[in-house]
C-alpha cells in the first residue's frame, strides 16, 4: 500500500512572492552548472532509434513464436514467488516490444502469416531481440530497461539500468499538484523542487502543469539519473522551465536563497525498510538502484529528513507531497509533523492511490 502525504500551510498572511530575477536563481542559466557530464551520455530508447536493421517477417515471426513459448512457460511462477509478471502480462510486453522495434506498425497483424518473406525495417538487430527477451525472462530485467522507456501519464520517459523506473502510483502526485495550482496562480508561478527526480518524471509532470509560468528544479544524487532526467526534459522541450541539478537533496540549492521561498516540494524518496529489500520482486531487487529504494531501518530516514527541511524552506501557503510506503508511514509522518513541528502545518492529507478505497485524513492544526 502506498499513500501520499500532502500538506499545506494555512497561514492567513501570504507574503507577496516575487519570482526571483537574480542570476543565481535563473534557471535558464544552465551554463553555471553542467547538467550532465559528457561521460554519462544517456542511452537512446529503442523507439527513438533509427531503423538501421532489417529482417524478413518470417524471421521476426520465428523470434516472436520463440518469445511467446518462453513467456508462456513462465505461467504464474514469477507471480507466485515474488509478485512478478505472469504470462499474460509478458505477452502484452512482448507486443509492446514489437511495437517499439518495428518501424511500420501496420505490419504487426501480418506476423501471424506463415512464410512471409516481406522485409521489415527494425530499430534493433533480430539477434539482439533474442538476447533482449532472454534478459527479460531469465535475468528478470525490467521491461522498461529492455525498451529503454517507460510510459508514464501522457509521457514516454527514457530510462536505463541505474535509473529508477517511475511507478504508476506516482502519477497521482502530479494530479495533486494539478489540483493545487488550478486555483492558485501564485503557486503556479512559484519555484518547485523535485527531490530525487530519477528519470525526471515528477519534474516534467509538474513542469507541464505550470505552463511555463513557474520553475522547477529537479535534483538527483545519481549523476546518471541527472543526465537521463536532462535528456527527458529536453525531449519535452522544457529546458526553460526545468533545471536539473546533481547532488544530495537540498544541497544543490545552496547557492539560492530558498528559505521560505519554495512554492512546492515534491518527492518520491526511498521508503522501503532495509530489511525488506532482499524480499523484493526480482526486477526491482536486482536491477533497480538501491539508492532510490532503501529508506533505512524503518524506511523513513529520508522522509523524516525531507519533512524537517521542508518546514523551513516552504513559503507560507506552500505545498508539499511525498510518496510513502503506505498508511503506516503516513500516519507516523502526520504525528511527527504535528508534534515536532507543531503549528507550522495544516491540511495534512493522506491520499491513497486508487488501487484501494480512498481514505483521507485531514488535519487542521492551529497556528
Amino acid at each position, binding site marked *: 500500500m502506498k499513500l501520499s502525504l500532502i500538506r499545506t500551510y494555512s497561514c492567513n498572511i501570504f507574503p507577496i512572492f516575487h519570482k526571483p530575477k537574480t542570476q543565481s536563481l535563473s534557471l535558464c542559466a544552465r551554463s553555471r552548472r553542467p547538467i550532465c557530464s559528457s561521460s554519462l551520455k544517456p542511452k537512446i530508447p529503442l523507439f527513438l532509434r533509427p531503423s538501421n536493421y532489417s529482417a524478413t517477417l518470417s524471421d521476426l515471426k520465428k523470434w516472436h513464436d520463440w518469445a511467446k513459448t518462453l513467456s508462456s512457460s513462465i505461467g504464474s511462477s514469477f507471480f507466485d514467488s515474488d509478485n512478478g509478471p505472469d504470462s499474460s*502480462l509478458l505477452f502484452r510486453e512482448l507486443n509492446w516490444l514489437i511495437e517499439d522495434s518495428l518501424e511500420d506498425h501496420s505490419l504487426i497483424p501480418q506476423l501471424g502469416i506463415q512464410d512471409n518473406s516481406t522485409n521489415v525495417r527494425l530499430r534493433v538487430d533480430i539477434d539482439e531481440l533474442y538476447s533482449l527477451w532472454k534478459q527479460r525472462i531469465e535475468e528478470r530485467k525490467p521491461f522498461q530497461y529492455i525498451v529503454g522507456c517507460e510510459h508514464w501519464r*501522457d509521457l514516454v520517459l527514457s530510462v536505463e539500468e541505474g535509473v529508477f523506473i517511475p511507478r504508476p502510483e*506516482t*502519477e497521482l502526485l502530479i494530479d495533486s499538484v494539478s489540483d493545487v495550482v488550478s486555483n492558485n496562480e501564485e503557486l503556479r508561478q512559484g519555484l518547485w523542487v523535485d527531490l530525487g527526480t530519477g528519470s525526471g518524471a515528477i519534474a516534467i509532470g509538474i513542469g507541464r502543469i505550470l505552463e511555463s509560468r513557474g520553475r522547477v528544479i529537479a535534483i538527483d544524487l545519481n549523476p546518471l539519473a541527472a543526465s537521463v532526467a536532462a535528456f527527458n526534459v529536453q525531449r519535452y522541450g522544457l529546458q526553460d522551465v526545468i533545471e536539473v541539478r546533481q547532488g544530495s537533496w537540498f544541497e544543490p540549492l545552496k547557492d539560492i536563497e530558498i528559505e521560505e521561498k519554495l512554492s512546492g516540494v515534491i518527492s518520491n524518496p526511498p*521508503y522501503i525498510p532495509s530489511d525488506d529489500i532482499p524480499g523484493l520482486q526480482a526486477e526491482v531487487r536486482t536491477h533497480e538502484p538501491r539508492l532510490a*529504494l532503501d529508506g533505512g531501518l524503518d524506511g523513513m530516514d529520508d522522509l523524516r529528513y525531507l519533512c524537517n527541511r521542508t518546514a523551513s524552506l516552504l513559503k507560507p501557503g506552500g505545498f508539499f507531497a511525498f510518496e510513502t510506503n503506505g498508511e503506516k508511514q503516513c500516519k507516523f509522518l502526520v504525528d511527527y509533523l504535528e508534534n515536532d513541528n507543531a503549528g507550522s502545518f495544516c491540511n495534512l492529507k493522506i491520499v491513497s*492511490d486508487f*488501487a484501494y478505497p480512498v481514505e483521507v485524513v485531514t488535519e487542521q492544526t492551529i497556528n
Partner: protein
Amino acid sequence: MSSFWLKRSRSSSSLLLQNPRTKTRTVESSQFLNFIDSNQNHTVLPSGLSSFLFKALKNSSGSDFNRSKTCFFGSQYQQFFPRNSKGGFSFFGTQAATEPSTADGLTVEGIVANRWTILDESDSDWKSHAAAIAQSIQVIKRRLQWKKLMVRLNLLSVELNKPDLWDDPVHAGRISREHGSLMGKMKEVKAFEQELLEHIDMIKLAREENDTELESESLEALVTMRRISNEKELEALLSGEQDPCPCYIEVQAGAGGTESMDWAAMVMEMYKSWAQRRGYGVTVVDEMPGEMAGIKRATIKVVGEYAFGYAKSEVGVHRLVRISPFDSGKRRHTSFAAVAVIPIMGDGSTRVQINESDLRIERYRAGGPGGQHANTTESAVRIVHIPTGVTATCQNERSQHQNKASAMAVLQSRLDQLEMTRQAQMNAQHTQSLTEISWGNQIRTYVLHPYRMVKDLRTNYEVSDPDSVLEGDLDGFILSYLSASLDKDENIEDHQSAQSQSLIREEEEIPESFMASTITNSTITTATVLREEEIQSLNNSSIQADVSSNEVVEGNPRKWQPFRRRHILDGYSTEAVADVSSGGEDDIRDTNKFLE
C-alpha cells in the same frame, strides 16, 4: 431548383389532366415542394405553415390517390405495389404527382412498372439499362427510407425557420447538420433520377432525328450510370446518423467455461480480421483472458469509415456447434458469445456530461505492496459510473494515465449509447449494450460438426465454409442483413409496427434447438445468463452433470434469460411469439442423425 419542379410537375399534370381532382392536388404538391425548396435555401417563412400545408396535402393526396389509382393507373400499379396496405399510398400519391419524368411522361416508377427485360451490361439496349437504373433508384430510396426522410426533412425545415432556433446553438447545430446531410442525400437521388430521364429523352430525340452519335453517347452515359447505381445502392445501406462513426466491438463469452471462452476468442479474432480486411484500424481496449484458453470478455476499438454502420449488424448472440477440443469425451458442444457494438460519436453530437464525482476509479493490480516495491507494466484502470452502474475497463495502454483516458472514452461512449437508446427506443436493436442483449437474441449459428455451415438466422443467408467466415469474411452476412432490414422496413407505414414486425420475425427464428438439445443425449448446451454468480452456478451444475452421465441438463431453463423474451415495445406481448421454430426441429433431427 424551384423552376425545375414547376416544369416537371406541369408535365406530369398534363398527363394527369384526365382527373381534375388530381390536377388540383398536383398544383398543391408542387407548391409544397417549392416550399420545401425555399426552406432549404433558408428563406424566412412563417413557421408552421409548411407543416400545415404538408398535412393538408398528405390528407388530400391520400384520399385522392385511392381514387386515381383505380381510375387512372389501373391494375399495373397494384401489381407493382402488391404488399402495400392500409393507407400505404398516401405519400406515394404526392410523389407520383410531382415525380420528375421524361418529355412523354415516363417516370422512374413507370420504367420499373414497364418491366423491361434487364439484360447484361454489355447489351446495348437502352431500355434494359434504364430499367436497371430505375430499379436501383427504387432500392436506394427504400434504403434511405425515402418517405421518412422527406417527413423528417420537412420537420427539420420547420425547426430551422424558428426565429429562436439559435438560442440553443448546440441544438441548432445539430438540426442544421442533420438537415444538410438529409438534404444532400435527397438532392443526390433526385439528381440521379433526373439524369436518367434526361438521357432517355436524349435517346428518344436522337432516334427521331437519326443522330446515331448522340444516341450512342447517351447510351454510354446510361451504362456509366448503371455502374454507379450499384455503388450508390451500397452506400444507401449506410445512411444512418451514426453509421459513419468508429465503434467499439465487445464480445462476451456465455457460460460453459473454457469451451465458450474459446468461442468468444474466435469471435473476437473474426472481427479483428474482418476489420483489418476492410482496412480499419483495430486496437484492443480491454481483454479479460480465460483461465485456460480464450477470453471471458474483450473490447476492441475499430476506427474507419462506416465502421459502426457495418458492425452494427453483428449485434446479438453467436452460437457455435462443434466437437469441443476441451472435452476429453469428444462430445458435441454448443456455446454462445454475445456481441455488442457501440458507436463512438464525434464531438459534434450531443454527448452525455459526466460528473467527476459520479465516478469511482479503480486500478487493477496484483496483490502485494506497490510503489517502489513492485515493477510492473500492468496499469489497468476500471471506472464505474455510480448512478448508472456502467463500467469501463482498459488495460492495454502502457500507462495508467492513458488507460484511464481510454477507459473514460469507452465509458463516455457507453453512456452516450445509453442516452441514445433512451431517446430513441426504436433504435434499440442496434444500440443494446452487452448487458442488455438477451441471450435469446441469437443472430447466427456456426456449425463445425456434424456438417459445416454458417447461417444467419435473421436473413437465412448461409455459407458452407465456416473457416472463411471465422477468418473475417463477413461482408456477405453484413450486407444481406443491412439490405434485408432496410428493405422490409419501408413497406410498413408505421414505424412502430415496422419495428415490432421485425422483432417478431427475429424472435420467431430463435431456434429452440438449444432448449431441446439440453435434453438430447451427449449434447452439452451452455445457455447463459450474464450475471457472474449465475454463470458460476451453471458451471457447477454442468460439472456435476458431467460426472453423473452423458446427459447434461443445466438447471431449469425457465430460470434463464435466453428463454425470456425481452419487452422492447410496449404492448407487445411475449405470448404472441411462436414457440418452436422449424430450424430448431431440424437441429434436433441433425443431432439425432449424428448420434445414430
